[in-house]
């Protein structure tokens, strides 16, 4: 696998350029969060602004209920992730291995859920949640988040199971396993990269969502992080320092998880195809 040097250099140049483009906006947010005195705009291009201070970050923890929001977000996201992974793991398996009645319609239905402009579902969704007395409960939020993340997760799990040869389960069945045991003991461990990705998606869907959350959670003690973040925003008096600092803190956990799991991303994210 030898390559001409110029080609290798070219690869590095391209990757370097795009890496800078990919990361730059994030640095922009960090810069604003460090800028003293609530200024969104400045002609200063330096990454660390003059008189940089961590004051906004300190204030988030001391003057605002940042820790409460963080805890609420963690609670909601963890439950949604766990539920999402379990449901997608079994559901995706059924779609991959069984040609049951409603199989094709089901797969198509999953995709159609992605087609509806989500903002239009808000009003009926709210009415439903209010009638079921789920306003100001995490339960309502968790069910909604699970439902939003599930279609993609099911699709993705199904695609991954498709790449696992059925012969493995057949062998296990011959060895005396039940269908469920064959799934649980043989296929599921092999699907771990996809499970990791499913978990990541469910987590992301709930960690950074605010439109639905704003409708359901109407008490500041129940706020999740994005709602706390939004409370710094107003049409003509946004507290940009807090907003940027909170943005950084909201993004950080997702990024850390993303980066930690990035090696699974490539092997685990399969939307179908490549089946033998």
């Amino acid at each position, binding site marked *: 696998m030898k390559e001409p040097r110029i080609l290798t250099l070219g690869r590095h140049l391209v990757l370097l350029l795009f890496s800078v483009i*990919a990361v730059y906006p994030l640095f922009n947010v960090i810069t604003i969060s460090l800028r003293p005195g609530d200024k969104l*705009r400045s002609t200063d291009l330096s990454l660390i602004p003059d008189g940089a201070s961590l004051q906004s970050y300190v204030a988030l923890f001391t003057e605002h209920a940042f820790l409460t929001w963080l805890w609420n977000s963690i609670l909601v996201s963890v439950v949604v992730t766990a539920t999402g992974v379990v449901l997608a793991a079994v559901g995706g398996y059924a779609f991959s291995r069984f040609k049951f009645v409603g199989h094709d319609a089901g*797969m198509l239905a999953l995709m*159609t859920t992605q087609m509806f402009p989500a903002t239009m579902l808000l009003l009926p969704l709210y009415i*439903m949640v209010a009638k079921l007395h789920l306003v100001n409960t995490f339960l309502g939020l968790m069910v909604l988040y699970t439902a939003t993340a599930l279609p993609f997760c099911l699709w993705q799990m199904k695609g991954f199971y498709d790449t696992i040869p059925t012969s493995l389960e057949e062998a296990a069945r011959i060895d005396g396993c039940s269908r469920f045991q064959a799934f649980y003991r043989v296929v599921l461990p092999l699907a771990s990269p996809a499970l990791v990705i499913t978990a990541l998606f469910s987590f992301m869907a709930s960690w950074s969502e605010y439109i639905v959350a704003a409708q359901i959670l109407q008490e500041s003690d129940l706020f999740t992080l994005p709602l706390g973040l939004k409370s710094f925003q107003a049409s003509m008096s946004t507290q940009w320092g807090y907003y940027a600092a909170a943005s950084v803190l909201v993004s950080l956990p997702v990024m850390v998880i993303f980066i930690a799991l990035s090696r699974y991303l*490539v092997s685990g994210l399969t939307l179908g195809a490549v089946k033998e």
Partner: protein
Amino acid sequence: MKRLCWLIPLLLLGCGEDRDHVTVTLWHQMVPAERAILDQLVLEYESAHPRIRIRALYKETEELRSGFQASALAGSGPELVYGPSDVIGPFQTMGIIRDMTPWLPAVEQGQYVEGSLTWLPSRDPDRADKPELLQVGDRIGNHLALVLNGNYIPQPPATDLDFIRLAQENTLDLDGDGRIDRYGIAWNFTEPFFVIPFLTGYGSWVFDKDDPSQTTPDLDNPGAVAAYRFVLDLRDKYKVMPASCDYEDADGLFKEGRSAMIINGDWSWGDYLARPELKAYVAPLPIVAATGLPMGPMVATKGYSLNVNAEGQQADEAMAVVRFLTSPPAQRRFMEELKTIPSRVELLNDPLLESDATLRASVTQMRNGRPMPVVAELRAVWDAMKPRYQALLGGSETPEQAAHGMQADALARIATMNQELQPTAFVPVFKTLLFLGLAGLLWWQRKSFGLFVRDWRRHRLAYVFVLPSFVVIAATIVYPFFYNIMLSLSNMSLRHFQSWEMIGLQNYVQVFQESIFWSVLLKTIIWTVVNVGFHVVLGVFLAIVINGPVVGKSLYRVLLIIPWAVPSYITALTWRGMFNAEYGAVNLIGHQLFNLPMIDWMKDPLAAFIACITTNVWLGFPFMMVIALGGLQAIPLELYEAARVDGASRWTQFRKITLPLLKPVMLPAVTLGTVWTFNQLNVIWLVSNGGEPSDKTHILVSYVYKAVFNLYQYGYGAALSMVIFFILLLFSITFLKRTSATKAVY
């Protein structure tokens, strides 16, 4: 399962109400400094009334409006809402706020300054002569005035001529690089609210001044044209202000000392006065010499309204809270700390109003102003003014054209908003057809049910596995989906908010009849194709580059997926800032490093659309890259070796091996990507600030969003949503069939 049991009480947290407590919920849109005082007042009230709990919740303007509408429709919501009086008209028309007269007898009404109590005629035809009290104000204001930097301008201008002179003297290129370093004046150019003082200065107004109901727009008159010309002259003839400027630009310029004057509202003054280096002070806007009239802003009351769903004791306690929050001591605290003008007669003689320079200027400015009409029509007027005003400043329309267009648009929008769609004779037939169709569908699929019963035994595991997911998705999607279908066939709108009924297909007819639908559809298709095209090409390209022998592969991969990892509403706002004309990184880098011209991205529709596309391309390429990388790694290396033995070039290898083997992997991702991009509301909304300039950057979803939320066209919006849904459904089915990717998907 047992281990999870401890979660259950946590999940139900917050739904239990204390029996012996009465909770009064208040949604407000107070800025942070106001919130601090409100919180103190709430604490005091609660300690004096141990049985009462006040839950005050901040909501952003639009969120408060749409959230309150939805919750009131669902029969719940906060007992009290606090905000400026411009939402009172629509709220009353929708029937979601209550008359407060029973709680505020005539004696007490007299204690409030005239105009701070908002009255509207009852909507009940039998009580039409009895006005309803719909808002109790705790302050008058929300008005614009001139704020000056005392270092540059010690004395405020008396007339517009002084104003121009002072602005010219303070527009300076200090370092001689050909770029202005200090402007004479700055303000928010994007909102028509900020142009009102110029209109009144030239003797114009937004509604016909002789119409007591203030519902007939009067936007096309010589005064308005003169006012727009004056604004254009400030920029082009006298060159005393930036070429384009939104709220944050103006605010930033003034705070950095790069603008000698700013026009801004009373909510912002405290922030400027608190910066000693600016020596900022507030002054009334100047008098227009040609007319002799002072520039007067729109003045609004801010106050409390009572939810229609608040009843009995709940309503009594809520009104007691209102009485406390609007009481003289409470108002005095706001007046002292935040320089607000009180709404209580008792406080009008307060020495502070005379002794405090800011309050004195504010009172003068307020007297020069005109009260904001509390009618729903004002919303339509703003909506009509905004795009034309932006076109005027963008140079694509003359003052005459803009004024003329505003008037025509305002009339059309008011007509749309007040449109009364009645059920046609066709409706019963239609209902029958709908029912028959549903029955037919069931009959057609009857075999499936039989099959299902037989299949159940064979594939029990499959059903058990799928059932939970199916239940969760169905529970959250099915009801809203059918509700939306119902809405799309109904006349739900401003005038039929609670009392809507089926009217047939009229909304759909309207969708297809309007030419704007087709032009926005075309734009949406361009948006989708360009975005997905770039996503795929960039994604595959980068995947191929990274998939070779590169040192630091995993580091690059981590950096390249960052756009995907960060929540998009944060990065979209960042990109908006980066495309800013004056401060944005895109222009600054382009100018400083490559000497490119500074482009005013948000002024020109095409440039703004390109900015949106760039943002979305940046957001979406990592996903495609990861998918492509997975596909590349699944291609056996032996294929390439064999090709090399046969003497195939790299290009041939790419065309004959890589592409065909990548295609099946990419197709499902492309389908999903298309659907997601088609419905990408966040990016368009945040980057172009809701379709600016002049509503020319909309795609279908953002257009629907705007139609529903600005003009209350719920039925129309639902119909358009259904159309979007069917377009995507049709596309997905044909695309997957054509490319025979169905096998991969199913």
